[in-house]
């Protein structure tokens, strides 16, 4: 993956089209909301709750199913020039493999992201990733079905106690990179399982990224969790990530991805000129 890649995080970019007014879709790396083989209606409302500097979500993977996605959403995104990374999630290893097999034949899929950290796997009847070897088996099954020249990212929860072990396991199973991370398991105000996201989880995710990149320098890590501007994106890159994902911030300001892309492109230009003057102005702005 190109250093400094900024991706739209799974489940936070709608079908992709809704971002068109706020970002140039041509060349944009977008991870789709997690797609299942069969359509899913999703969970009850309320699905999203506000918490200080964060959101807790319990969407329940509402999605139209693979067939509908392939027939309508994917072709539109490909025509718009989006680099489509399809997030897959399933009830069994066989379902993950079937998703990978069918997506390998679909024109225009840039890569896959294997969702291994859904907040309520048991409640939603999804394959339960309790141990790193569970994650590794899923990744191995997906990798077998998907062409070796296209990336398969493994997305893990930012769980510090298992991050290095988990990253090593999925890397050994053939993942091209690791996304750290997903939402932090949490509860909705009424007690239902949910996932905590946004700036509230940034320090936790940063720590995980740092531990993994230090322990496993060969593993490509994409950082995520509360990325809401150039400053947080740079913090993940400084921790050793090659790219970042932006989720919750898009719900708050749909132009976030475009802003971060532009700022990082400027960094790159500055780097070539040996000039880091841009950092301080942005730091100040983000602290306000």
């Amino acid at each position, binding site marked *: 993956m190109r250093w400094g890649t900024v991706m739209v995080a799974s489940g*936070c970019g709608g079908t992709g089209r809704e971002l068109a*007014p*706020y970002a140039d879709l041509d060349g944009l790396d977008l991870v789709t909301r997690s797609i299942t083989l069969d359509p899913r209606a999703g969970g009850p409302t*309320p*699905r*999203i709750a506000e918490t200080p500097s964060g959101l807790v979500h319990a969407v329940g993977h509402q999605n*139209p199913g693979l067939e509908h996605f392939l027939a*309508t*959403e994917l072709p539109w995104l490909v025509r718009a020039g989006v680099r489509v990374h399809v997030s897959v999630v399933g009830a069994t290893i066989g379902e993950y493999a079937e998703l990978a097999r069918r997506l390998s034949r679909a024109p225009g899929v840039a890569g896959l992201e294997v969702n291994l950290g859904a907040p309520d796997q048991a409640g939603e009847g999804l394959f339960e990733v309790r141990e790193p070897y569970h994650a590794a088996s899923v990744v191995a099954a997906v990798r077998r079905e998907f062409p070796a020249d296209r990336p398969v990212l493994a997305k893990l929860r930012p769980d510090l106690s298992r991050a290095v072990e988990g990253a090593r396991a999925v890397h050994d199973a053939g993942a091209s990179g690791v996304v750290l991370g997903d939402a932090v398991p949490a509860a909705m105000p009424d007690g239902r399982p949910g996932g905590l996201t946004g700036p509230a989880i940034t320090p936790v995710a940063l720590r995980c990224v740092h531990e993994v990149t230090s322990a496993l320098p060969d593993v490509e890590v994409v950082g995520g969790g509360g990325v809401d501007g150039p400053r947080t994106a740079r913090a993940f890159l400084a921790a050793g990530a090659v790219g970042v994902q932006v989720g919750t911030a898009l719900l708050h300001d749909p132009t976030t991805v475009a802003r971060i892309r532009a700022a990082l492109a400027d960094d790159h230009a500055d780097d070539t000129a040996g000039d880091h003057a841009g950092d301080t102005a942005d730091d100040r702005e983000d602290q306000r």
Partner: protein
Amino acid sequence: MTSEPTGVPAVRGPVHVVGEVLATKRAGAYRHLTIAAPGLPERFRAGNFVAVSVGDGRLARRPLWIHRVKETGAYGPTLDVVVEPRGPGSTWLADLPVGARLPVTGPLGRPFALPREPVSCVLVGEGYAAAPLFPLAARLRERGCPVTLVLAADDEGHLLSALEARRSARSVSVITRDGSVGARGDVPSQVEAVLERADADVVYAAGPTATLAAVAAAAERRGAWSQVALETPMACGTGLCQGCPVPVVAEDGVTRRVRACVDGPVVRGDRVHWGELG
């Protein structure tokens, strides 16, 4: 009404700008804000809303109906919204001073569809949610439709201005639960008679879910066509998060959960599964 995905028209799509509060006015229980928001008014159609950001690390956006737009004025393009301070976000908004800046995204959502013929239209709005019916009434009048506007509320403090409504509607009537002004009662108990009197062909409603359900049912009983503006809680307002599902019956008879923010908020009343919406 279609299932996902629906596109945002690329040319007329929403914009994201930093708006500035130009004026604030207290009216009963509500606060009216006039916001300079370049790019929004010229794209506005009645039934659209804006999503605004509130402060203090609160990430969910607050959807607000657009009550009025001015494309040109002393301060450039402006829009008006009506805020009822109920929770921390709306209270924060209601307390904004003139000159405050706030991120505004819009216009968002599917607007009200307008009849082609000059047919009789009844508009029923409850509380601040009646806000989008004012610009709708003006558009309908331009098309030659006789407009009957019903403003309903718990009490006088929660009514939008009937005086102002009279500028666009041929007939305006007021219903309050406590009878402080207008007829005493509520929408469900009175809507039938209102539709009858106006010989309504098309019915529009905006307000709490129970009110919308009652209006939709009354319209269906007389074979009138209804459109309702839903107030489903939303986190982003832009179609990104799937936090505002609405169960609707599509053309093919299959129930789907569409997103209130982009597939609505205005939907056909006879398509909504009211029971499931709660």
